[in-house]
């Protein structure tokens, strides 16, 4: 049973935890198709979304998830607030803690910052992305999308392509898919392959055609131009030519291989626009849909653990 107080990363989860989260998320995915989506699971709880880094889709997804479960949701855009006045992360955490939130959803540009914050607060903390470290709910929603499409989440061959070096999504997916016993191939230019990544139980190649051979799932990553501090690739057109996903390269994969992308997409840089819109191959829209369901599931489980620990604290 999932017993953790926070969701800081995939690395600390067991395969059973992952399955439990996905099963519950599956339930919410069905629920989200109903006319009346409102539930009372988180009724009375306060959820604060604290984003130290720009985000539209993840923040919206967490907000909708919280509201559907009946939580009081508040969004704080930290870029515009006290951080600019020189307040440290810990002070911000303590200030918020004094307002007694129950769920804190945090995104931060530095790896490890969400964990640091979690050490200082009493509520449950959800990592919505920390630096290049982890983005656990993205990996979970990817896993749910794969499981629904392929009927299973083990013994699949999955290619993760593109900018691995700057991607927290890639790291979380490597941990998750590895734990569920899948074969993982990382494909991308060597300059965007972090050093020693081959020791994390994956195959590494810089050749798209070779790497995509017979894969069940193709995960494309966004080229994170804003995180690059030097020339990693000569030009976007050369990148697209060699590593951008188009129908020709995709032909190497299994005929029923699905195409995924965490968004936002750079059309014509890492993925062909028409391919991204092809409803027979692309599950990109479904990923967004599963995002809400997975976040509802995670928040319910964390709220359950939070209640339990509070009950234990009052009984003893």
């Amino acid at each position, binding site marked *: 049973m999932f017993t953790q107080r926070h969701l800081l990363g995939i690395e600390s989860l067991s395969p059973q935890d992952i399955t439990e989260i996905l099963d519950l998320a599956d339930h919410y995915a069905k629920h989200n198709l109903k006319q009346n989506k409102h539930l009372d699971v988180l009724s009375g709880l306060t959820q604060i979304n604290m984003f130290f880094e720009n985000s539209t889709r993840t923040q919206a997804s967490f907000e909708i998830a919280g509201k559907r479960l009946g939580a009081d949701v508040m969004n704080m855009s930290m870029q515009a607030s006290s951080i600019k006045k020189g307040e440290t992360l810990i002070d911000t955490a303590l200030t918020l803690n004094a307002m007694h939130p129950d769920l804190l959803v945090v995104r931060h540009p530095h*790896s*490890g910052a969400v964990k*640091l914050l979690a050490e200082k607060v009493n509520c449950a903390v959800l990592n919505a992305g920390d*630096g290049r*470290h982890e983005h656990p709910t993205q990996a979970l929603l990817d896993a749910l999308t794969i499981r629904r499409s392929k009927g299973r989440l083990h013994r699949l061959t999955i290619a993760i392509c593109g900018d691995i070096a700057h991607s927290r999504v890639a790291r979380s997916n490597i941990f998750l898919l590895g734990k569920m016993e899948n074969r993982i191939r990382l494909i991308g230019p060597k300059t965007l392959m*972090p*050093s020693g990544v081959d020791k994390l139980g994956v195959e590494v190649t810089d050749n798209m055609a070779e790497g995509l051979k017979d894969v069940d799932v193709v995960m494309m990553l966004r080229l994170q131009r804003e995180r690059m501090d030097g020339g990693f690739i000569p030009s976007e057109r050369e990148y697209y030519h060699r590593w951008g996903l188009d129908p020709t390269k995709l032909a190497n994969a299994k005929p029923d291989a699905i195409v995924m992308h965490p968004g936002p997409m750079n059309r014509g840089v890492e993925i062909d626009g028409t391919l991204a819109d092809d409803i027979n191959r692309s599950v990109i829209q479904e990923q967004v849909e599963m995002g809400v369901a997975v976040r509802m599931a995670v928040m319910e489980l964390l709220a359950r653990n939070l209640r339990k620990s509070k009950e234990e604290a009052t009984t003893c």
Partner: protein
Amino acid sequence: MLTLTNACIIDPEAGTETLGAVRIEDGLISEILPASTEGIDCKGKYIAPGIIDIGVKIGEPGERHKESFRTAGLAAAAGGVTTMVTRPDTTPAIDTPEILDFFRRRAADASPVNVLPMAALTKGREGTEMAEIGFLQDAGAVAFTDADRPVTNPKILQRILTYASASNALVIAHVQEPVLSNGACVTSGPFATKQGLPAVSPIAERIQLERDMALVEMTGAKYHADQITCAAALPVLERAKAIGLNVTAGVSIHHLTLNEFDVEDYRTFFKVKPPLRSEDDRLAVVQAVADGLIDIISSMHTPQDEESKRLPYEEAASGAVGLQTMLPALMQLVHGGHMDLPTLFRAISLNPAKLLGLKNGRMSAGAPADLILFDPDAPFVMDRFKLLSKSKNTPFDGRRMQGKVLKTFVAGNQVF
């Protein structure tokens, strides 16, 4: 006159450990005797020359809330460090004879152990204009360094080395290629990748050392590399020594006893400069010390307050305190069979003394009586709040260690 008898005397010069007595007169060692019936009975514990620690950061001027001469001096005395060779990376930097003079007077007033100051190599440690090397030498600077900032421009460094060699000034450099190292806080590899932290390859150290060795070969300057921390840099050092360059190298206690995995979940007390290396690198560097290729071990004492460490790993300040943890940390290498005690004291007492032209660091008549009496086996659990430094940022907190300083003498006077 004072006699310390029934002690195991470590002589790093001769490479011996022998039972005997040490007689101290007028602040100097007057005689080493096989035995003595009078004096203090040391009960078979070890006497060695006091540690000469090159690269100690003291918070004065500018950051006295992190460390003062008094607290650093007390920590040094308790840690067996009898001479602190201090860094100029203060605020402002120690780059004029006037600031150096202030610094020396504060040191003399407040520190129970010897303080020998280093001065900045360039004005404001900015790497653009040479500091007044001559005046600073006259004012008592024992070496010149920009601490953790390498001089980026090779033309400027070449001129400085040329100028310094004419006045036989010792230049100490931080050998990390600055462009590659910029923003990095861990060593590249599987650990850095898993934690998603900005990383630098150890090749940055080799590149910078190669460049500096070429310039030393060209100018004939007297040069010391502050910290050699990886296997990739060792052949460069070996070659420089083989062709007779006036070059020595150091390493910190942290790079000898910890590796990159100790950072674990973003523990900022393990953030040092250069970042902790792989276990293979650590072992290579330990071996290089045992072989004498790396000459000197320093604590690289860098006090940081809680505020500057309680931040996300990338933003947190670098450095760890080391004056008081140095000896027990290094005892780990002795107990682990990597080196014997005379070899260790060659690296922490004799070689630093030789590099700075001091008579200390020796166990012979006429040498200053800067001595420590210690028990290399005494076990304890490190508690950072018991450290005497004002800042408590040690990575060894909670660690089981061995090795305790029992007494410290500076010029024959007991300071601990």
